[in-house]
């Protein structure tokens, strides 16, 4: 189980592989992964940059609690959450959630739970820079289900 906050861009596949290398090959049969990345359009406007603010300390605490909640609900072998903070550019990854489990139902359910819980509980806020140079705080999430 691991939570990483990254202030520079990251490679989701590399971090997933690095984490998986600590697991026993053959012990899990299902790996569900989600990557959220920055789109260059939001609510109809061209977006050229984003700043991700967070609440250091609370962020890590909430993400670790979310993983514990997932562990209490599903038989999962391991889980990884990586979240970006700071200034990011379109196309860069914002978040990675990965779950390893014996079977696929738990992996899918827990991976999606991590994302939904993160989006409602982990203190991150997005501020977009539009093409015309203006800034705006993102005020709501898209629906998760």
């Amino acid at each position, binding site marked *: 189980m691991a939570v990483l906050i990254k202030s520079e861009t990251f490679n989701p596949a590399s971090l997933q592989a690095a984490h998986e290398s600590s697991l026993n090959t053959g012990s899990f049969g299902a790996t569900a992964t989600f990557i959220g990345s920055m789109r260059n359009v939001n609510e109809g406007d061209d977006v050229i940059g984003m700043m991700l*603010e967070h609440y250091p300390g609370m962020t890590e605490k909430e993400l670790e609690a979310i993983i514990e909640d997932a562990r209490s609900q599903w038989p999962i072998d391991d889980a990884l959450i990586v979240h970006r903070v700071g200034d990011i550019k379109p196309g860069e990854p914002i978040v990675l959630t990965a779950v390893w489990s014996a079977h696929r139902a738990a992996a899918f359910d827990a991976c999606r739970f991590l994302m939904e819980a993160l989006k*409602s509980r982990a203190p991150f806020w997005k501020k977009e820079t539009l093409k015309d140079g203006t800034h705006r*705080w993102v005020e709501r999430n898209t629906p998760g289900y």
Partner: protein
Amino acid sequence: MTIRVKFFASLREQIINPSTEVDGSQAKTISDVWALATDEPMPAHVLCSVNLDHKDPGDPVADGDEVAFFPPITGG
């Protein structure tokens, strides 16, 4: 003793000259902390935490706490 107060994201930009510390002996709830730290009414939908745990505005506070106010979360 004092209560430390933090504001995040759009709230940090909107609230004019908030106090970063308030007198703990004057605040019983999170709402009291808001009223001591700012001259503005608490907007709807503001979220709050005490010592890094999500809390409601009516929840109690104590000397030495860290209280934070922030808008709805938009990470992920």
